């Protein structure tokens, strides 16, 4: 069933109309990327319908001036805003009529070559601009620009938030992730799936398992194989441990922002416990090297019962601290009403993950498009969800997800004890294969989608789209009534990894 999900168009207008129609009919826009050919560029738009994904593609050919251009989608589809900028940066395709075609991922000097992922040869003369500074948009009395980052205070990833403020208020900010653009897209190219999954793990290190899963699912889809049951269960265990660590990290950062030293230390300890548990199972604190196309690489070095007892006591401690945190007025006061994104907005921008779910929208792939063992394990009837859309709602969603994660891990461990088969991975032989596959997983940040094109059994192009990239754009609008001191809370509540944004 490799290419069933892909629809090819011959004319750009028809393609655009179809994408716009799909989105206006209620489907969620999930991505846009280009695959460069010698002169032309193939655009693929990803659309998430109720229970599946569709890839719509079309080839853009150079106009008489040798320029690649097409009418922008952003004018009709909000979330295409960043994708089109990234597409322009990487593939050099100009979306005509785009509201703001500033560099997002890559700031290049005029006339420089572009990386053009999909085309095998690396660019020969790519000149990055090191001095370009951010745009200033707002005028008004007393306005000044405050650039937070790229060298942030504290131990965090590099990104620049260029805040424009008349003091205290944050009427407007620009997000500039390009500083740490690593060119990951080109790193997939020409690798075997077995090597490329290691790259996928490093798209966003704090969601290594989620990305490895999304990538592996894409490969498995191309190869038409299903991982063995034991691997499917183990994947759930690792994925949920990763989710717990991420959610605990958010809790830690929120407590830190609120100045609750003990709470910060406690949640940091719980997170460390989670990472240590993972490392004692597989050797890596981030579950790296575990997920491989076809299954998992090795059985855990801990027995299922040992894992279960650890996770049970971790749950007890976490739950008690979460309850206490949610009863601490000085904490709640800072979260309530802060960084509100209302449901209409979340819907319009198609926000995913806990961010979307806290604003009453955004599905959870574990429910809507289950992979691995999620379909077999008993999930609560509905994914966690809130309507308020503020920092507090996001934290509530995360608490509830931690509970679900523990339940899922325990259920999976129970089945693992019963399962006696030794097969951990289905064999995959893709040497010389050509194909296209979509893979996805629900990471702690939200929906991870990998669109993989194989050529001669090697990766020709992998569009590794992290939920962080999709969601961070909403950060622009998360400050309707908030001030400087709310910044740390709102940023923490998004819970995103910037490596996955800058790629």
């Amino acid at each position: 069933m490799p290419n069933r999900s892909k629809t090819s168009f011959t004319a750009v207008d028809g393609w655009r109309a179809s994408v716009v129609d799909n989105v206006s009919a209620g489907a969620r826009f999930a991505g846009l990327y280009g695959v460069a050919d010698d002169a032309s560029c193939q655009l693929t738009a990803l659309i998430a319908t109720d229970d599946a994904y569709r890839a719509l593609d079309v080839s853009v050919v150079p106009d008489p001036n040798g320029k690649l251009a097409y009418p922008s989608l952003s004018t009709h589809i909000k979330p295409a805003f960043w994708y089109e900028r990234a597409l322009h940066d990487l593939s050099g395709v100009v979306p005509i009529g785009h509201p703001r075609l500033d560099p997002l991922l890559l700031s290049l000097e005029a006339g420089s070559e572009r990386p053009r992922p999909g085309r095998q040869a690396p660019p020969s003369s790519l000149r990055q601009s090191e001095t370009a500074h951010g745009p200033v948009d707002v005028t008004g009395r007393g306005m000044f620009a405050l650039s937070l980052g790229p060298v942030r205070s504290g131990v965090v990833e590099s990104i620049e938030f260029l805040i424009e403020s008349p003091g205290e208020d944050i009427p407007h900010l620009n997000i500039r992730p390009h500083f740490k653009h690593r060119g990951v897209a080109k790193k997939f190219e020409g690798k075997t799936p077995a090597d490329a999954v290691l790259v996928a793990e490093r798209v966003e290190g704090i969601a290594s398992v989620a990305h490895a899963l999304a990538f592996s699912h894409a490969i498995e889809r191309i190869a038409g194989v299903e991982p063995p049951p034991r691997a499917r269960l183990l994947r759930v265990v690792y994925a949920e441990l990763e989710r717990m660590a991420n959610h605990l990290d958010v809790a830690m950062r929120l407590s830190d922002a609120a100045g609750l030293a003990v709470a910060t230390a406690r949640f940091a300890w719980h997170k460390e416990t989670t990472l240590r548990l993972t490392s004692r199972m597989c050797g890596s604190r981030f579950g790296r090297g575990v997920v491989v196309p076809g299954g998992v690489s090795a059985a855990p070095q801990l027995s299922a019962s040992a894992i279960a007892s650890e996770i049970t006591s971790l749950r007890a401690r976490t739950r008690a601290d979460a309850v206490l945190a949610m009863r601490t007025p000085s904490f709640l006061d800072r979260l309530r009403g802060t960084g509100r994104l209302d449901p209409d907005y979340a819907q319009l921008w198609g926000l995913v993950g806990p961010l979307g779910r806290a604003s009453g929208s955004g599905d959870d792939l574990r429910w809507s498009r289950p992979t691995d063992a999620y379909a077999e394990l008993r999930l609560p009837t509905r994914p966690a969800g809130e309507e308020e859309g503020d920092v507090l709602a996001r934290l509530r969603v995360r608490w509830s997800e931690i509970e679900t994660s523990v339940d899922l891990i325990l259920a999976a461990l129970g089945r693992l004890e019963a399962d006696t088969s030794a097969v951990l991975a289905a064999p995959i032989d893709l040497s010389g294969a050509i194909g296209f596959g979509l893979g996805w997983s629900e990471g702690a940040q939200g929906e991870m989608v990998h669109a993989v094109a194989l050529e001669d059994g090697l990766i020709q192009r992998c569009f590794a789209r992290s939920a962080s990239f999709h969601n961070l754009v909403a950060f622009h609008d998360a400050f309707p009534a908030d001030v400087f001191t709310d910044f740390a809370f709102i940023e923490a509540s998004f819970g995103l990894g910037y490596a996955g944004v800058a790629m």
Partner: protein
Amino acid sequence: MPWVPRGLRNGVLTSRWPRHQDDYFDGFAAAIAVDPTGAAASDPRVAEAARACPTDAITATGDGVRLDRGRCILCGRCAEIAPEVFTIATGSAVAAVARDGLVVGRVAETDEALAAVRAELAQRVKRLRRSVHIRHVDAGSDGSDEWEVQALVNPVYDIHRLGIFFTASPRHADILLVTGIGTSGMRQPLRRTREAMPEPVVVIAAGTDATSGGLVGGGYTAGTGVGAVLDVDVWVPGSPASPFSLLHGILLALGRVPPPRDEGGTK
């Protein structure tokens, strides 16, 4: 207020390393060890392992097998293919004061040069004494490195007990801890931060990414490690470098790593 008893509930969680042994420190698989006597360099399995290495960390030439931990991302393939030569080694003491020090296997002896480097570093850090401030800069990591660096302040590692603190201003910093591959975009901010620090300064490259660019470095955004941008004093391998490896690297820079104990010492 109710947080105060909560903080006391679970007793002391903090590791006692480096004063005392720590199981997690010793048990963590932080590197690949090479036994050059395990098989000849010409052994086909060694060659296969070298080919299978996704970061080309293994060289098998006529005079022996070498593995560059600064390139290794610990995928463990070599240990699967040629377990006689390559083994996953436990113990977090993997940092080195010279880039060459990360190459294991049959290596030329460089004791003299190494001693000179150590002496120079020791001279430089003498004035830092027992209160040291670290400025961290992400120069293009995958995000996991920051988690590991951040973990150093959690109650389990608690580097404050050692007089080491993170600071936001490079003006107050003694150590520049760099993670990530060193992308073109971060070169200038990184240089500016280094320039803003008061001498003496110690630069630590944290993780395989920062050491060599690892798996994702070396593309069109350059990124073959921060050594291309700054003079690095201490190299900490690991993908990402675990908190204990980082702590070991920091103490190594400060000359505060305790001498290695005998095997089977008191627990």
